[in-house]
C-alpha cells in the first residue's frame, strides 16, 4: 500500500539540518549517512552523500532526477561482479 499523500515524503529530520549546514559551509563535503530509508528532497540537489550499504559509504551526488527516490536505491547492498572484465568494452565515465 502506498504512503498517504497527506503525510508528505518521509525524511529523517536531522538530514535536512545537516544538508543546510553543509550547503552553508561551501566546502567540498561528503555527508556520511545511514538513513537509506529517507527520500531524496529537492533541498539535497548538488550535495554529495556517502550512503552506507552495510560495508562502505558509496558517494551519491544528488541530481534533480533522483528527487523522490530513497537514498538506499543508489547504494546497493549486494555485489554483482559482472561478466565483463574490469574496464572492458568501450564503456565511458562522465565527470559531473
Amino acid at each position, binding site marked *: 500500500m502506498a504512503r498517504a499523500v497527506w503525510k508528505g515524503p518521509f525524511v*529523517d529530520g*536531522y*538530514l535536512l*539540518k*545537516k544538508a543546510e549546514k*553543509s550547503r552553508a559551509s561551501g*566546502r*567540498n*563535503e*561528503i*555527508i*556520511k*549517512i*545511514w*538513513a537509506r530509508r529517507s527520500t531524496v528532497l529537492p533541498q539535497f540537489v548538488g550535495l*554529495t552523500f*556517502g550512503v552506507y550499504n552495510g560495508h*562502505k*559509504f*558509496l*558517494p*551519491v*551526488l*544528488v*541530481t534533480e532526477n*533522483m528527487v523522490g527516490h530513497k537514498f538506499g*536505491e*543508489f*547504494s*546497493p547492498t549486494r555485489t554483482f561482479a559482472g*561478466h*565483463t*572484465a*574490469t*574496464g*572492458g*568494452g*568501450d*564503456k*565511458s*565515465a*562522465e*565527470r*559531473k
Partner: protein
Amino acid sequence: MAADASERRILVGAVAGAHGVRGEVKIKSFTEQVRDVAAYGPVEDESGTRRFAIKIRGEAKGLVIASLDGVADRNAAEALKGLRLYVPRAALGKKPKRAPKGTDRWFVADLVGLAAVDTQGAALGTVKNVANYGAGDILEVTTPTGDTQLFAFTKRTVPEVDIANGRVVIDPPVEVEAKEDGSDE
C-alpha cells in the same frame, strides 16, 4: 598506465556459440551499444594472431548474431565458442563517440590503472575500477595499503584527469557524519 595506449587492446566481446548452419556466431558484446562490437574494425583473438571482420546479421536475447570472415560452416563457428574478441585501443578514438558536446567523458579503460594523487601531488593509490550505481560514476582507488577508497567522479572531487601523464588529481572531500542523535562529525 599498464601499457602504452598504442599497444593496448580492449576486450569488446566474446563468442557465445554458433547460430544456424551457415557459420554465423552469437557474440556477447561488452560495448555500451551491443552492435558497436563491429564498429571499431576487425577484431582479434587474445594472442593477436587471428583477425576477423564482423558483419552483424541481427540480435537475439541480448546477443549479436554475426558472421565472421573465414568462418563458413557450423563446425568452424562452434570451434570459436569462448573466443574473446579484442580491438586495438587506438581504434576506439580519443574520446567516446557518443559523448554529448560539452561533457567530460573518458573511456573507463583509460581511467583504470591511472595513478591517483592529491592536490599536493602525494600518492593516494591507483584507480582500480569505475563503478556506477545510478548516482553518477565513482572512482575506486586502491591505496598502497590495499584498502579501497571511493570518490565521486565530479569536477570538484576530481579536478584534473591527465591521461597522457597517467594520473588523476583527487581533492578528497571532507567527511562529515549525519547522526540520528543530531551530533556533529
